[in-house]
């Protein structure tokens, strides 16, 4: 869960995906700027931390790079529990890994933190000639499921920092008030104590905060909210009509 203090934000981030998709390579590229052609299999999960500066705040990522092997699957909840963000990684040269990524998305939707910022990363984008999963296919899937999507390459470093930056931007956080509407909504949702001084970089983040408020008083509403929130285009601006429909 993302925790806030002044302009610093601590966010737990988990990487999930099939073995060999390139989770460790992505993290190592991001954290250490390295790339190893034959990266050894991760055992259990490796922990990294990296701080990013986004506009006027800093986000400290506590990154869990999980092992993709089947035997660790049942232990994944241990690592994604309470995560503020998840990167689900697949290998664009393997349809199996894309299918596996979809399963991870499903599992997170069912079990994970509903406020989680979920991101889909199509890794190994440098291997264009071996591509099996088209960009279009993945983009459509990501849009349907409310995921942020990027194709990355840990080898050439393309989009690696960008994807982490984008996550940092999307994390709900404390900022000077710019959007009074957001404030009102949060207030109504019973989050008074934390309402003052909130603004949201996009609508989906706002809805997440609203949901967090809802959960404190009405189970049925939360359920309906959850069912609808995933259908929302993350870039929609007119979220208030959606919310009124509840």
């Amino acid at each position: 869960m993302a925790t806030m203090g002044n302009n610093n934000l601590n966010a737990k981030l988990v990487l999930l995906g099939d073995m060999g998709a390139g989770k460790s390579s992505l993290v190592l590229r991001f954290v250490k700027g390295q790339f190893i052609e034959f990266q050894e299999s991760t055992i259990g999960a490796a922990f990294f931390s990296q701080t990013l500066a986004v506009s006027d705040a800093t986000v400290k990522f506590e990154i869990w790079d999980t092992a993709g092997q089947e035997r660790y699957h049942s232990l994944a909840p241990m690592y994604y529990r309470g995560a503020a963000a998840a990167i689900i990684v697949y290998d664009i040269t393997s349809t199996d890994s894309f299918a596996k990524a979809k399963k991870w998305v499903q599992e997170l939707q069912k079990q994970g933190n509903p406020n989680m910022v979920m991101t889909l990363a199509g890794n190994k984008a440098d291997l264009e000639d071996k591509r099996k999963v088209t960009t279009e296919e993945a983009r459509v899937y990501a849009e349907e499921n409310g995921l942020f999507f990027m194709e990355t390459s840990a080898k050439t470093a393309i989009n690696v920092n960008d994807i982490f930056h984008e996550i940092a931007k999307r994390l709900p956080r404390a900022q000077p008030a710019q959007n009074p509407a957001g404030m009102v909504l949060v207030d109504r949702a019973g989050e008074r104590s934390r309402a003052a001084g909130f603004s949201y970089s996009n609508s989906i983040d706002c809805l997440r905060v609203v949901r967090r408020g809802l959960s404190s008083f009405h189970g049925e509403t939360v359920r309906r909210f959850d069912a609808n929130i995933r259908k929302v285009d993350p870039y929609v601006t007119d979220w208030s009509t959606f919310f009124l429909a509840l």
Partner: protein
Amino acid sequence: MESDSDISTSFDVATDQNPNTNPPETTEEQLQTLTVDETYGVADLNETSNQRGMDEAENGSVVAEVDGRPEPQIEELLAGGPPTISAVSEAVEEVLDLSSAGDTLRDDFELEADPPLSPSSSGYAGERGSSITTSASGIEEVDGDEIDEIDEAMAPLDGSGDASSDSVPWIPGKKHVDEDDASISWRKRKKHFFVLSHSGKPIYSRYGDEYKLAGFSATLQAIISFVENGGDHVKFVRAGKHQVVFLVKGPIYLVCISCTEEPYEALRGQLDLIYGQTILILTKSVNRCFEKNPKFDMTPLLGGTDAVYSSLIHSFSWNPATFLHAYTCLPLAYPTRQAAGAILQDVAESGVLFAILMCKHKVVSLVGAQKASLHPDDMLLLSNFIVSCESFRTSESFSPICLPRYNPMAFLYAYVHYLDVDTYLVLLTTSSDAFYHLKDCRIRIEMVLLKSNVLSEVQRSMLDGGLRVEDLPPLDPSPRSGFLSLHLGQERLVTESQERLKEAYLGIGGPAGLWHFIYRSIFLDQYVSSEFSPPINSSSQQKRLCRAYQKLYASMHDRGIGPHKTQFRRDENYVLLCWMTQDFELYAAFDPLADKALAIETCNRVCQWVRDVENEIFLLGASPFSWYGCCLWCCKEWRWC
């Protein structure tokens, strides 16, 4: 061939027969695929010489308590002991001495001495003839051996790399994945390991691709279940030079096919460790998958662990811990180890089950929560797992791990962090959400270790190495001063004469032709072995010595004819001397021409030396992982409390 009595009756025919006659057809068919090499005889010859050596030892030397002192001494009884004879004559004598199996063995011996075997001399002639021609086979076999030497014998015995400069570093990971049971190179490998399920599905193979070996796996399964259907268990099958050892662990079957002449007990122990490694990765609850679905495919569950297995199998040929069931410590000054122990103890009181600080496979310090004890085999498997998985080096990790001897059914969680290139800290806990606590513990430990210079001492000790036979001090009846710490980075009392002596030994080992020794303390569950010095400096020589010790260990612990107290054995490679008391076991290797009386005296010196530096080479004192009440710490004596 006393071992034949162990084998299931169903296979007696295959093993007890003179290899010159054809084994019955069914067995031959079953074993055809197992046959890799056709040279006979050496294994059996060694078995018998082994027994002979023990007889001699029983007659030749006894353990006597001198003046009621706690340290026992070997005393040679000149009257009872046979005269020392040269290696050559003894070897010949061994062959001639055999009365019951003598004919077989002599035939074998002759065959061995006659390299171009005629195809008809072998029970497996058909296969041999069909695959390669007689004239070509000599070359092929040499090639095969070369392949193996490179595969198995590349790392120096102690792993520090300074002992042998001529060896290429051993590369972890699976090799020869392209092979299968049809490839000649695969058949020529000296030592195969297989793990398969009770339905015959391959789980792991040392060489070759598991899926391609499905047919071969099914054959192994058929052999095992054929014997089990008769209400019996197959332990091993001997096919000429090859030994096939079976181990059944519930739904998991383990098989070793080897022509390395290692004793059955040693190979079985290795299979046990491979099974233990599997349990460490998956826990025994994997059995439930087989209960639900007997055709369950376990291979995907072990994905990415090839390096773990290959490193374990590699350690069978260099790490004495694999057969001694003891661990070894990095030599450190006593206060340094105490400082490390104190901070680990501190952490263990805050809910950590085990806190282990290790350098490669050597323990720096280790602490367990109250009443929790850690078995040396678990430590071997745990350190092998951590050292062989590169991913632990990149960052701090938190991974489920099962300690098979502690609780084979449940996972513990291991926090692993490398403090420098070789030194790593392992914190084990039962709680899956203790990561942040363990991380804090690690930060505290690391700070203390840095401040108290433990880490730099550890690095220095890695460079300096451990005990060296050249440094063996003369036997001194006077009590020793505490700081006579030889060679451990402390002030060294090296007199000029000692220095000169050392030069004299250069290249020929220590005094009296002592080449190497291993001392195992029984109640500490620890051993110390000397560094390898010339002439044991190439990796293949180290591997050969390791195997000789392994054989010695097996013969000393043989339940059928043992246990024995001493053994003196001379062959063309070494004089091996083993001495067991209720406190320790000493294994020493000498020049093959070493004098027996001198060798025994030297062993006494080694024991004295080890006792003098015990503070630095062993982890003493609070050892909550030891099963025994040890008085070393309080009474400063090697006896039971």
